[in-house]
C-alpha cells in the first residue's frame, strides 16, 4: 500500500508544509489560521497556532535551512514567521496587492520568495538588511489573469508561473545585491528582473501546479481540461508534450525524479506519470485504489443519479449500495487533493511525499513498496 499514514486534521485543508526535520506539519484548516502539529510517538498534537491573517491562507512554505515559515493569504498579505524561543513571530510583508495572494514558495537559496496573486501579478520578495524588512518587487505585466502557482528553478533566478489565462510563463527574478554574479557568467544572460524568458501557450483552460524537474531541464504543469503538460529543454526551442488524462483534472504535481511525476487532483488519488527512454511522457497508473465501484455506477452515486437523469433511464440505478461501498472502501482521500509536498531532500530521488486535500486529511505516501515504479526512477 503506497499510503503509509492518513490523518484527519480538520474538515478541510487548503495547503500544508513540513518543518525541516519533517517532525511537524503546518497547514491551514480553511480559515485564517495556521495550525502546526507535531507527532509525539503515535499521536499528532497541536503545538502552535499562527494567528495574524484576516482571511483564508492560500499558501504556506517552510524553509529547510533557515527555518522560516512564509504564509500568503486571501487578505492580500504575506507574513514571514521566525521562531524566537518557542513563539512564532510574524513580520508583515507589504506586497502591494489589491487582490488575494494565491500561492507562495521560498526560492532554493531561501533568500527570496515568490507570491502569485489574483491581481495578475507575481511578487518577488527579498530581505533588506538595513531596514530589517522584506521588500516586494512586482512582476506586473504579462499575466492576463490570476496567477495560480509559482515554482523556482534550481538556479534561484528563474521562476515559472501558471495562470488562469491558461499559460505557463518563465521569468527572470534577478535582483541586484541579492543574486550575486556567478563566476560562470550564466546570471548575466538573465538580464533584468521581470523579463519574460518563455511563454507556453499549450492549454485552452486554467493552468495550475507548475513544477521544475530536479535538474531544472523539464517543466510540468496541468490544465483544467484534464491535461498535463511536460516541457523539456525550456529555452528558445522547447519540446512540449501534451498528455491527456482520462478522468478529472489535476491540481498539483511533484517531480519525484527526473523522469517521474506524481499528479494529484479531483480524482482523489495520486496519478503517476513517467518518461520512457525516448523521453516520451505517459500515464503509468494510479497510486493505491481509485475510488471506483464495479462496472455499474463507475463514478459513485452522485454521478449515477446525474447520469440517470441525463440519459433518461435509471440504467445506472439509484444504487443505494454504491453510496455505502464507496464510503466503506474509503479511498484514502475523499475529496480533491490540492497540495502535494515532498518529504525528502529536494534534488534527490523522492521516495516519500505527502498530500492534503479538501477532505481535511494529510496522507503520507511511500514509493518504497511500489517496485514497478522504482524501476522508472
Amino acid at each position: 500500500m503506497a499510503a503509509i499514514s492518513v490523518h484527519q486534521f480538520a474538515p478541510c485543508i487548503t495547503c500544508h508544509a513540513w518543518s525541516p526535520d519533517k517532525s511537524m506539519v503546518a497547514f491551514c484548516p480553511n480559515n485564517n489560521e495556521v495550525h502546526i502539529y507535531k507527532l509525539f510517538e503515535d499521536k499528532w498534537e497541536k503545538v502552535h497556532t499562527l494567528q495574524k491573517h484576516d482571511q483564508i491562507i492560500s499558501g504556506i512554505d517552510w524553509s529547510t535551512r533557515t527555518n522560516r515559515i512564509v504564509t500568503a493569504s486571501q487578505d492580500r498579505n504575506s507574513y514571514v514567521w521566525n521562531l524566537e524561543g518557542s513563539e512564532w513571530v510574524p513580520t508583515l510583508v507589504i506586497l502591494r496587492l489589491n487582490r488575494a495572494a494565491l500561492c507562495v514558495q521560498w526560492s532554493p537559496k531561501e533568500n527570496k520568495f515568490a507570491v502569485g496573486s489574483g491581481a495578475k501579478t507575481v511578487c518577488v520578495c527579498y530581505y533588506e538588511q538595513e531596514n530589517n524588512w522584506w521588500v516586494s518587487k512586482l512582476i506586473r505585466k504579462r499575466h492576463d489573469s490570476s496567477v495560480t502557482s509559482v515554482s523556482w528553478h534550481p538556479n534561484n533566478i528563474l521562476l515559472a508561473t501558471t495562470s488562469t489565462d491558461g499559460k505557463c510563463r518563465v521569468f527572470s527574478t534577478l535582483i541586484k545585491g541579492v543574486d550575486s554574479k556567478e563566476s560562470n557568467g550564466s546570471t548575466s544572460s538573465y538580464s533584468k528582473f521581470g523579463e519574460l524568458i518563455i511563454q507556453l501557450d499549450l492549454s485552452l483552460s486554467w493552468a495550475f501546479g507548475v513544477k521544475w524537474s530536479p535538474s531544472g531541464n523539464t517543466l510540468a504543469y496541468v490544465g483544467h481540461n484534464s491535461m498535463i503538460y511536460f516541457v523539456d529543454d525550456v529555452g528558445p526551442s522547447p519540446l512540449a508534450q501534451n498528455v491527456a488524462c482520462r478522468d478529472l483534472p489535476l491540481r498539483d504535481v511533484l517531480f519525484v525524479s527526473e523522469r517521474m511525476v506524481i499528479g494529484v487532483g479531483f480524482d482523489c488519488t495520486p496519478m503517476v506519470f513517467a518518461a520512457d527512454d525516448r523521453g516520451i511522457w505517459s500515464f503509468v497508473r494510479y497510486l493505491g485504489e481509485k475510488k471506483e465501484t464495479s462496472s455499474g455506477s463507475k463514478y459513485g452515486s452522485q454521478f449515477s443519479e446525474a447520469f440517470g437523469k441525463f440519459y433518461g433511464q435509471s440504467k445506472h440505478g439509484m444504487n443505494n449500495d454504491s453510496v455505502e461501498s464507496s464510503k466503506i472502501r474509503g479511498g484514502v482521500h475523499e475529496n480533491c487533493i490540492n497540495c502535494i509536498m515532498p518529504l525528502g531532500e529536494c534534488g534527490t530521488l523522492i521516495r516519500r511525499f505527502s498530500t492534503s486535500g479538501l477532505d481535511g486529511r494529510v496522507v503520507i505516501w511511500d514509493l518504497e513498496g511500489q517496485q514497478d515504479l522504482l524501476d522508472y526512477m
Partner: protein
Amino acid sequence: MAGAEGFVEADNAEAIMIRIEHKTRKIESLLKQYKPVEALRTALEGTHAMTRDERCKSAHWIVVHRALMAIKDVDGMLSSLDSEYYDILMKYLYKGLSTGDRPTCEQCLRIHEKLTERAGFGCILRQKLAFQGTALPMYCKRDGLFPQHMQRSYFSM
C-alpha cells in the same frame, strides 16, 4: 505538435471546402457499402485543423452529422475507433446536442453515454464548451470543479 488543441494554420477556406466535398463523396460511397464506422472515421479525420471560417465549420459538421446518424451499432463503432478520435467525436456530440433537433440529440446522447464510459470525464472536460458556462454538464459541477467563487472579486478572469 498539433494535438487536439493546436490551431494549425490551415490552408485557405477554398481548399478546405474542396477537401470536404471529396470527403462527402467518399462517405456516401462507404455508407452504401454498409461501412458506417469507416465513414465516421473519414468524416472525423482532418477536422483537427481548426479553422475559423464559419463555412468550413458548417461543412465539417454536415459531413460528420451524416456519418453519425448512420451509426447503428454504437459499441461496435467505439471498439473499432482509435482513441485519438475520442476528443473530436465528443466535440461533435456536443455540437449535435446543441442543435436541439430531436433525432440528432437522441443519437448523440446514445453515443455520448458509451463514449464517456470508454473515454472518461477527461474527454468531456477537454471540450471548450466547458468554459462557456452555459452548457456545462451537470455532472461536472461537483466538488468545486468549476467553482463560482473563482469568478468573483478576488480572482480576475
